C-alpha cells in the first residue's frame, strides 16, 4: 500500500532534491486520479526504479509521459512513454532534507 523511498539525483530539483525521502501510495485506485504534475515512481527496464513528474497521460490512460525539471533529465524525452503498469506509486508525502530550502 505505502512505500518509503529515498530520492537520488537532482533532476526534480528544487521540488525534490537528492537525499529527500518520499512516501508513495501503491493503491491501484489512485492511478485513476493520476494527473499532470503528479510525482510518480516507476520501473524502467534500463534505469531501474525512477521518480519523475507526470508530463502527459494518453487519452486511454495506458501510457504516460514523464519528465524532470532540467534539460539533462533522463526521462520520456529520451526513452519515450511508460506504461501504466510500470507505475509503482504516486508520491503522497515528501520529507525534505533539513538543509533544503
Amino acid at each position, binding site marked *: 500500500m505505502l512505500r518509503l523511498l529515498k530520492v537520488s539525483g537532482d533532476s526534480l530539483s528544487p521540488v525534490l532534491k537528492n537525499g529527500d525521502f518520499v512516501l508513495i501510495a501503491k493503491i491501484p485506485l489512485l492511478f485513476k486520479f493520476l494527473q499532470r504534475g503528479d510525482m510518480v515512481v516507476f520501473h524502467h527496464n534500463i534505469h531501474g526504479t525512477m*521518480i*519523475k513528474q507526470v508530463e502527459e497521460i494518453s487519452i486511454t490512460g495506458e501510457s504516460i509521459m514523464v519528465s524532470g525539471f532540467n534539460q539533462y533529465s533522463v526521462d520520456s524525452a529520451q526513452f519515450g512513454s511508460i506504461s501504466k503498469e510500470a507505475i509503482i506509486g504516486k508520491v503522497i508525502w515528501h*520529507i525534505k532534507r533539513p538543509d533544503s530550502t
Partner: protein
Amino acid sequence: MIHEFVTKLDQTIGLETAKAHCDIPCGIYDPIVAQINALTVVRMIDLMRELAEKDAEKGPEFYNSMARYVAVKEEHAEKAKHEVRVIWGDYIKPAHLEKYPELHKLVHDIMQMGSASRQTADRVTAVNFVEAINKFAEIFWDTKGVATKRAKAPYAPALEMVYPDL
C-alpha cells in the same frame, strides 16, 4: 527531525532508491571529490602508523581503532576511483582525448594506484594516488578553460592539491 529519523531507518534497513537522475548529472562534475577521498586515504595511513607506534600493547581499543582506519581507507580509495571513473566515462569526450592523449593511461594508473592503496598501507603509493588525481584535475579544469592553482590542503595531511583558480 522526521528526515533524521527516516535517515536512521534507511541506514538500518536500506530503503530502495528512486532515481531522479540526469544523463549528465545536471552538468555538475568536480574532481575535488576524488581528490579529497584520495587525501583521506593518506590521512588514514598516517593515523594507522601513529596508532601502531604509540599503542604497543595492542588491546581491544587498538584493534577497534585500527579496523576503523582500515575500513575508511578502503572506502575512500574506492570512492576516489568511482569519482574519477564517472568523470572519465560520462564527461570526457573524444575531442578531449585528442587534446590529452595521456588521459586513458592516467585514469588506468589511478585505478591501479587506488587498488594498491587499498591492498597496502604504503604511504608513498597513497601520495602518488593523490598526485595522479591532481593531474587528472588539472586536465579536467583545462577542458573547461579554467585555470588551476596548487596549494596545500588546509587540513592534515596537508598535501598539495589542485584547485580551480576562479
